[in-house]
């Protein structure tokens, strides 16, 4: 049991536990805060995979923007933030069965992959991950077109947000 494995186990346990609390918590703001904890756990897992850039981007975008958006949305719409309805309906056993089957399927699929039991390899020294990403984003035979299309996608999101807000007003 290397230190990395122990850290991974602890972090995944916390992440999954927080995710469970997100969906079972009765107070909406508590659910949003558990979501923040889940997202932070995912960011830590990114660092375990040597993806430092993605980890900080996760915190900046997900926790710094999306979680705050969620909290704003919750605070702006509900007066009574307690969920009174019952938490499980009659078919809860079907959901549980599906979850177990999906997990079993994914597990058996991944077992045939050679990297399943390996930890993430360290980068060779001098490997500039962000530089490579930057080059990939702008070189014509790599990802420049998706890069520009991403900006159009963000523009579409902005226009959609304006449209929704107009309807609300």
């Amino acid at each position, binding site marked *: 049991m290397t230190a990395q494995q122990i850290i991974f186990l602890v972090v995944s346990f916390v992440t999954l536990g927080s995710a469970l609390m997100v969906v079972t918590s009765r107070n909406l*703001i508590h659910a949003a805060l558990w979501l923040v904890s889940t997202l932070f756990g995912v960011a830590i897992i990114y660092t375990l995979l040597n993806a430092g850039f993605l980890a*900080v981007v996760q*915190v*900046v975008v997900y*926790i710094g923007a999306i979680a705050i958006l969620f*909290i704003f949305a919750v605070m702006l719409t509900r007066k009574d933030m307690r969920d009174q309805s019952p938490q499980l309906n009659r078919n809860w056993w079907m959901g549980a069965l599906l979850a177990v089957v999906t997990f079993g399927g994914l597990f058996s699929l991944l077992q045939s992959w050679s990297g399943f039991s390996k930890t993430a390899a360290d980068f060779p020294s001098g490997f500039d991950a*962000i530089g490579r990403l930057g080059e990939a984003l702008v070189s014509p035979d790599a990802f420049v077109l998706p890069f520009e299309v991403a900006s159009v996608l963000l523009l579409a999101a902005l226009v959609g947000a304006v449209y929704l807000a107009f309807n609300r007003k």
Partner: protein
Amino acid sequence: MNFWNDPLKIAADWLMGIFTSWGMPEIGAQALIAFLGIFLLIAILMVLDIFLVWIERKVVARFQDRIGPNRLGPYGLMQPFADIVKLLIKEDTTPAGADKVVYNIAPMLSMMSVLILWAIVPLAPVILGVDLNVGILFLIAAGSIGTLSIIMAGWSSNNKFAMVGAFRQVAVMISFEVPMLAMLLIPTVLSGSMGMNAIIQKQDIWFVALAPLGALIFLIAAIAELGRAPFDMAEGESELVSGYNIEYSGMKFGMFYAGELLHAFTFGGFWSILFFGGYRFFGLEKVSPFLAIAVILFKAMIGYWIIMWVKYTMLRIRIDHMLAFNWKFLTPLSFVLLMMTALLNALLRGGSTWLYISGMFLSNVLLAWSALEIARTYSRREREKAEGPKQALGVVAEVHH
């Protein structure tokens, strides 16, 4: 390699020798040494924080033409210690109906978000916490945690002033993060790296000479992020009674307050790292790391002084004016500045140094001037629409009379 040139490594090796001779496994010894180092740094920061309280009170007193604390100890130096003792022995009340867990966690998160920033501040070429290659985004990530702690504080206090204050403060903080991110891209473009140490190493010419408007916009956005005047919506002391802080007393309030001052000092440090060369001062840092630490702390103190100066000179801006200023003026301006800097950097970098520096500097001045002209024309047009053309000039005529 002696102690004066590389203190961290010498100390770490010495401690490692001691710990392994006690029979500790190497991993454990490394973790313990790291822990001790971090603990030492944070302890020094907390002591510095205490003196920042004293500095703040003396400075605000001088700006307001009075003396400030001068009873406790020479020049009032014991005042912050008395404040700490007072905060420690105050009763720990929790307002009725407050959400206890969230209410208690908020000040801790707020202080933590400031302390972790010091992990990436390079105090000297060889003394730094962690040389992250994503240092700049780490700065923003820590800011996000701080923003979250403010929402938590405001909501859990069960007080409508706290909620309104927290909402407004968070709206201001997230709005001003956009020009701040754009301005953080400028040292990245100019130095080709997101790591703080690399940015300092590349500053043979301080970046403030290449992008003065960028430094200015970063300062404005940083002051808004800090929640200090003229953008202190949350602490509108006469407006919202102290905003998200209302229901906090004792050490929890102390954490918010001290956290804010330390945050301001930290941003003074980052401003100097990103635009003013950090620990570099014409080669002084190569002499000894301790001189480098002195240089960067001095520059951070100057940055903090400027932030205080702005706070005690300017009036608070109204929330809608603040947000309009950000979204309609600063954001377009900062993105245009970013595009211009990137373009000019690519075009002029290969040429002579003087052409490079003067080209970038003049383009910044030109951009600032034209932005102000556009704003002036726009506001004159708005005023004429509101008052009629004669009225707008009538005031000037009267004054000249």
